[in-house]
């Protein structure tokens, strides 16, 4: 059996592996000092992280939740709006105006990738509520940089050869893990494996 990749060690500690795989890993660990060391390091990290999070959570002073507070605020809003007939007409008018203004804005200033899908205008928000996808905020996103790095490796012949021949083992691991995790097409994986074997043979 091949040595165990970091990502699989992580799956092991997150209980994401099936029983058969766990047994295979246990058997491999018996005979592989290198992997045992790797497991020991990861175990230390997971156990430290778990202790840290537990302590952190324990220290948090969470205020009591009061459902009636929500209902009261909400009822007040309803009451207030039902008193005023003008409000009843103004709301949709503002909504329409907001939509028109927003559409015009998007027409002239197309949205950037890292723009928030959130809009301050509650009326507009309400309409788009279910479609709202929260976490598209990636202003300084190193994960994107990592992706860019992978692309650079793919496109740079010399670098790719270095990676594939194992000279840059870290990059190689990242690429292979990335492919496995992002469920790339089998044909891509095969192609990469072929290229790797060719390099190894030469």
């Amino acid at each position, binding site marked *: 059996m091949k040595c165990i990749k970091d990502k699989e060690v992580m799956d092991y500690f997150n209980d994401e592996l099936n029983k058969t795989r766990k047994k295979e890993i246990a058997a491999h660990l018996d005979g592989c000092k290198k992997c045992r060391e790797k497991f020991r390091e990861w175990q230390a990290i997971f156990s430290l992280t778990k202790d840290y999070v537990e302590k952190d959570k324990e220290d948090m002073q969470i205020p009591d*939740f009061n459902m009636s507070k929500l209902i009261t605020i909400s009822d007040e809003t309803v009451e207030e709006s039902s008193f005023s007939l003008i409000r009843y007409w103004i709301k949709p008018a503002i909504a329409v105006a907001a939509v028109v203004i927003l559409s015009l804005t998007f027409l002239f200033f197309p949205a950037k990738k890292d723009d928030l899908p959130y809009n301050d205008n509650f009326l507009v928000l*309400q309409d788009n509520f279910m479609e709202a996808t929260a976490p598209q905020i990636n202003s300084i996103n190193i*994960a994107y940089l990592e992706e860019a790095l992978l692309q650079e490796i793919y496109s740079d012949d010399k670098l790719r050869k270095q990676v594939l021949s194992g000279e840059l083992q870290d990059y190689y691991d990242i690429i292979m893990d990335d492919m496995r995790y992002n469920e790339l097409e089998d044909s891509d994986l095969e192609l990469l494996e072929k290229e790797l074997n060719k390099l190894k043979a030469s």
Partner: protein
Amino acid sequence: MKSSEINSLFEKNYKRIFRLALKMLKNYDDAEDATQNIMQLAYENLDSFRWEAKFSTWLYRIALNHIYSYSNKRKKRQKNVSKLNYNFPDSGNPEKRIYTEELFKKLDEIIEDLPPKQKEVFLLRYYSNLTFKKIAKILHKKVGTVKSSYFFAMKKIKEFFKKKDLLDFEEQL
């Protein structure tokens, strides 16, 4: 849906959302304020919630959306946020306590400095106790992508401690 059932749905998720808000905003007042807003927003929009989806998935989407927006707005008016301290009991080995406190503070810094995508997954996993599958649903991403972000976050933690020769902390105590 009965009001008592709605009550318990809100209550069940309140603590997890608060923890998430606190970790992301790093300030008690802001976290309380944001969590209250999230709950209020969700409560007022219950009508638009389609019950075939999971309530908590919907709530987390609102929560993340709101927390990010809150944090963006805050950046403009207030940059310094309070640093959290660890409240260790005085009993036990004082050397061990100081050492653990140091490790925790370092870990806190690393988590704070994680790229947003990784930090978000890390916090949802550890502070909201969510599975990768659930996180993927909330973020509209593949499980593999979520795991990848988590992996890179954990790798960063590991690399930091390895570089500083701190991986043998169990033995050093």
